[in-house]
């Protein structure tokens, strides 16, 4: 009887806290350790911040000088910069004609920031100029040069840059064209289509499955995933787009609905990727082989993947209706560590948990930047050991 009463009381105590979404000390055991993470508002609160509904971070990239540039999606898209020396987010203005910028942000050797806009599909150039001395721009347009449309009628889904060659590569939506844009001449060329049809599905499922990112290898070849999860390569020497005989990993039968969410070039020359089904894989561009490294999480998707100077990969998993978790993968030991929910708890000053994440970037100072992709979003700073 006493035992029954004890369990009853223990259960009710548990129910009394867990049942009502109250934060108890044991919650700290399921989130990223609080001494390794922090968050930034997208501007200077409470007025000069990128507004809610326009703040979902969908692109992050690091400039050669270490500045981190980000772009948002929503009612309007905004460009922002974080100079690691200052540590705060500086909004640079809304991006004219854009409601989304998805993994379509790239910085050239000279520091120019290239933006692939959606839905207009224009390529835009932002040239930083004494940013530290500029006022925060929220309701003013970002000062960009419109370089025009690359593929008529298409939005730009992803961008990457070959800094040495001075060439931008892009992937368009919805028709899945790969294109290049030469910085010196300002000319673009259609390199071909990597998915000719949408996979079989319900009548409302009409989207072609292509990767959400592009990646370059050490030789300047460009890679994407396309139809049936096959890896496509554009070789700039041959000026040829090829469908390689390898696919992103998936359960047999799920290939048509597989895409690569995130790519990462390792200094060793291999390329890591994360798929829509949540698999991490290694792709060797020399041997044209794919190794499936398994799934770190139960959730679909790997919304971001970066490498820290400790040699580990850090990634975020979870779909739009999930609660995102951070993980790491150590190529040396071939082991995962699940770091937990992306949550910052600095009560009584601030506290916020990111549930959807679609952008990550590794800073030159070894800070990992994590972009939240929700109606109210923040930029998270994670410090790898």
């Amino acid at each position, binding site marked *: 009887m006493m035992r029954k*009463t004890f369990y*009853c*009381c223990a*259960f*009710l*105590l*548990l*129910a*009394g*806290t*867990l*049942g*009502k*979404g*109250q*934060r*108890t000390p*044991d*919650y700290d*055991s*399921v989130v990223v350790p609080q001494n390794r993470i922090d*968050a*930034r*508002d997208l501007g200077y*609160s*409470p*007025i000069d*911040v990128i*507004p*809610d*509904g326009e703040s979902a971070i969908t692109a992050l990239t690091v400039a050669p000088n270490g500045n981190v540039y980000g772009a948002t999606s929503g009612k309007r898209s905004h460009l922002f910069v974080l100079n690691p020396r200052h540590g705060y987010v500086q909004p640079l203005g809304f991006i004219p004609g854009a409601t989304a910028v998805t993994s379509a942000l790239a910085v050239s050797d000279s520091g120019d920031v290239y933006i692939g806009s959606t839905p207009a599909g224009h390529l835009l150039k932002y040239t930083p100029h004494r940013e530290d001395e500029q006022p925060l721009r929220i309701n003013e347009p970002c000062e960009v040069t419109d370089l025009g449309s690359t593929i008529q009628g298409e939005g730009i889904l992803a961008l990457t840059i070959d800094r040495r060659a001075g060439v931008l590569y892009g992937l368009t939506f919805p028709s899945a064209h790969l294109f290049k844009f030469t910085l010196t001449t300002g000319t673009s060329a259609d390199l071909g289509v990597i998915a000719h049809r949408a996979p079989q599905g319900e009548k409302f499922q009409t989207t072609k499955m292509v990767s959400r990112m592009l990646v370059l290898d050490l030789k300047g070849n460009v890679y994407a995933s396309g139809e049936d999860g096959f890896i496509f390569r554009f070789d700039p020497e041959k000026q040829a787009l090829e469908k390689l005989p390898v696919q992103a990993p998936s359960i047999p039968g799920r290939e048509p609905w597989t895409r690569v969410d995130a790519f990462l070039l390792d200094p060793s020359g291999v390329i890591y990727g994360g798929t829509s089904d949540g698999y991490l894989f290694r792709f060797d561009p020399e041997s044209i082989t794919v190794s499936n490294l398994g799934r770190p999480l*139960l*959730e679909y998707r790997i919304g971001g993947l970066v490498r820290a100077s400790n040699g580990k990969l850090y990634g975020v998993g*979870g*779909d739009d*209706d*999930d*609660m995102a978790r951070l993980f790491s993968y150590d190529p040396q030991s071939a082991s995962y560590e699940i770091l937990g*929910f992306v949550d910052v*708890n*600095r*009560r*009584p*000053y*601030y*506290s*916020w*948990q990111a*549930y959807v994440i679609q952008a990550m970037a590794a800073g030159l100072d070894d800070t990992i930047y994590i972009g939240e992709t*929700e*109606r*109210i979003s923040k930029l998270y700073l994670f410090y790898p050991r």
Partner: protein
Amino acid sequence: MNPRLRYGQAAPVMILAVLCLITPPCASSADKVITLDYRIFPGLAEMDGNWAALTVAHDGKVYAGLACHGCDGHMVMYDPATDRVTDLGNLTRLAGEASLRIGPQSKIHAKFGEGSDGRIYFGTHAGLWFNYARVGTKEGYPGAHWMAYDPKTGKFEDFGIGPRYEGINTGAYDPKYNRIYGLTHPRGHFVYYDVASGKAVDKGRINNFESICRTLGIDDEGNVYGNFGAGQIYKYDPRTDEIIELPLHIPIRPKGVSLGRDYNKSETHWRTVVWDSQEKKFYGVDESASLLFSFAPHAGQYGEVKSLGQLCVEGMNDRREIPYATLTLALGRDRKLYYAPPSKEFDYGGSQGIGVSHLIVYDLESGRTEDRGEMRLADGRRVIGLNSADTAPDGTIYFVGAIEVRGAPGREIESAGKIGNVPYRLALVIYHPKTR
């Protein structure tokens, strides 16, 4: 403009903290007792909580949602004409999920709404969350169902799952636009179900998981209001389908002063609001210190908020250990606000020891507040704590919450568990202002 990172609050917090520590307790209201009528929910002693889920329909019938953590919630109805309580159904079964053995439909966690068709609309909610380890898993909670109960036929209509994997933590129904609104848990999204079109819509994130605003207020034009950040008011306009963040804040106490549940929340909101159709304004109670305010949404450019005082047990006003506010605010037909705060931090099985609920009355005409004393049943048992309220057409004020259960020789105690060391069960607590 939102739950943004907030700094610079340390000084007022410290001053308030010192003030609170030197304020002596006052117990004068403890001598006063108010006796209330009650009805238990037969066969449902296991039900362990009720939050907000209480609505009186135009015909005087009272609908309540009874929660059960780790098991199935129930919807019940009390008909004062026949003095009968009816169990209308097991929510998991009504959702068609009884045989799945997954996270059950354990609660209705928000007020019901009565449509112009006479149906009672609501959304369901989960019970246990296991630190969100089961969110999105096959054994976890599948998501809240939007539903309607038709008193004419006695049948339910299940409109299906709205937010996937999430519950309706907070909700309100608007008869004008025929929509059920909700705030989801855990991800704090503003969602709605449009009954006529059958469309479920997600307008995105508004709160953090441990600070989801507990009441959505709807005005006479169908605009929906809630809180985010440090008591800031937002408005959803159904004409534009947009959420607008208003430059308006309700009165709150700085975070870190009040102890109990408020201490561990990152945002501060109104706990509850009620709409006054006569004055066309809301009256509400904040969660941090039970601060009473009015919010006139049609006044000025954005609306107008006025501080009206504090609704708490007499002597608690400036104290740090003021219990977390309850969801029991009701506007009487006599132009008085009725509110039932507990004398100790109350949350059913998660309460901080045993206390007694008080009845506080605020007269809208005179602006006077009165603590009518401890609420007890006719046999002297305590009304430990209440967490929902509504007013009947005849002026009766109904509450649902925890009453003390006492054993009798040879009879097993029927209870939901214990608060402190006192067995409790849920009951409908009835107050008749006219017969006072």
